[in-house]
């Protein structure tokens, strides 16, 4: 039942992007999100498109799967496009049919904004598709480390995040199991009147909460039993290693930025 939640899941594969340091990937995504706003004409958008396309190809994630992951958000993209198309009233009039008027600027803005949206979604999902949640947390912890100086609880946040991420699949599995058990007892989750369906949530949520609390307690005990005492002086089992490929990727992105600056109008 929870099986079709694909967006933002890690897909194991052998690719350059999978092997990269999570820190460089995080930085790249962060910069990409910023520089995409530099693009403002056909040629700069073409650069962004080419860059995104190359990154997607390098990830070796099957296109069919990308498409499936995108399906839920594609409507949002189309909706953004239509919104811009119909409500921007600048530039020359291209087409009119009764009250519907389409202006050149509207078409341009619609295309650009929906494309920007699409590229942002593709690139950010590329991060989660090629990086395990644990790697992302490790990367974030390492990148945010300087904030420790101002007493920001970086380690605790990272730990919380990695525990939460670790238990998402478990929770989904559990949800699936309990749903099935209650369905076998005559609960209908996906059909019947709305009121019934809302009531059906109770026999699902209560067991889920009960087991989540139990699990949290067990985890806390297990961690203490193994001597966990917070982040002070703690060494890492998974070492991050910054490789040449990571630096190169960042350089490519800088080059892209320069190109965008040069060609923007």
């Amino acid at each position, binding site marked *: 039942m929870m*099986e*079709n939640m*694909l967006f933002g899941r890690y*897909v194991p594969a052998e690719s350059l992007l999978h092997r990269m340091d999570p820190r460089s990937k995080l930085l790249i995504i962060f910069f990409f999100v910023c520089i995409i706003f530099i693009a403002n004409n056909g040629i700069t958008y073409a650069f962004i498109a080419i860059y995104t396309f190359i990154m997607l190809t390098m990830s070796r*994630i*099957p296109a069919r*799967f990308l498409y*499936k992951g995108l399906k839920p958000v594609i409507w949002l993209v189309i909706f953004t496009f239509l919104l811009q198309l119909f409500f921007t009233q600048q530039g020359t009039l291209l087409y009119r049919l009764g009250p519907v008027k389409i202006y050149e600027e509207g078409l341009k803005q619609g295309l650009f904004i929906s494309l920007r949206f699409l590229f942002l979604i593709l690139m950010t999902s590329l991060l989660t598709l090629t990086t395990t949640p644990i790697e992302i947390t490790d990367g974030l912890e390492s990148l945010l480390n300087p904030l420790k100086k101002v007493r920001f609880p970086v380690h605790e946040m990272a730990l919380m995040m990695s525990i939460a991420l670790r238990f998402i699949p478990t929770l989904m599995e*559990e949800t699936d*199991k*309990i749903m*099935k*058990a*209650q*369905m*076998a*007892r*005559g*609960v*209908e989750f996906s*059909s019947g009147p709305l009121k019934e369906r809302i009531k059906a949530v*109770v*026999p699902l949520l*209560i*067991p889920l909460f*009960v*087991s989540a609390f139990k699990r949290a307690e067990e985890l806390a005990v297990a961690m203490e039993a193994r001597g966990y005492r917070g982040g002070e002086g703690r060494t890492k089992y998974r070492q991050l290693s910054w490789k040449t490929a990571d630096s190169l990727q960042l350089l490519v992105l800088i080059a892209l930025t320069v190109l965008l600056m040069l060609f923007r109008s």
Partner: protein
Amino acid sequence: MDISLSHVEYRYQAKTPFERIAIQDVSIDIPSGTYMALIGHTGSGKSTVLQHLNALLQPTKGIVKIGDREIKSRQKNKSLKPVRQKVGIVFQFPEHQLFEETVEKDIIFGPMNFGVSEEEARKRARLALKHVGLGEEILTKSPFDLSGGQMRRVAIAGVLAMEPEVIVLDEPTAGLDPRGRKEIMDMFYSLHKERGLSTILVTHSMEDAARYADQIVIMQQGMVIKKGTPEEIFSDPIDLMKMGLDVPEVVRFQLMLEEKIGTHLGQIYLSIEELSMAVASLVSGGVRS
């Protein structure tokens, strides 16, 4: 109610990179009144098969017939409630499904979902509690205040109170103490005998399979590799052991005895009583070589 699976295949997360075939080409017939044991290593697809028996899963290939309902791949299934009422499933660790404030409310939850009146459901709850060996004083307690074993029994009572025609058990006694196990297994067996309840039991215990079942199905890597009566299945213990499966202790004892005294008893005995008789007659008749 007859249930049959023919050439059933099931893929989890079909059409994604995480796709995996859990069972394939599984054909099993479960005529009304059968007691069938399903055996196999962990991950061999037993639980997946079970979930087809009341249409919790829809096959990705093949046909499942439950009474006169047919469940095929790629069809929309309207109202499966009647099917689910007739086929009750006790899942692995069923205590995880408890959620009501009191034991009684939890037990009557299933029957009432299927349209049984509250009064009738309460009556059934008391009867079901008796079956699982709990006293009525427990009815007003919170299910979360019970011990693990009691919770398990309450959960089982919740399924029994639905009064299904077929009961499907996924390792119902995992984690119980030996006496509790025997009580529960004997209870299911007597329900099977008295009410003609079809029973499908997933178990890792060859003893239970040999003692209770009249049909055994063995699964390996998502496929049925052997099926037959216990006599047929255990008549070739060497073959079972090659598959990495256990044989009942009685059979193991007989094999070792035969090896030590260098003679064969002629047939495989599945109960201690029968085997001891055979050995006794062998001893009194003198040991031949």
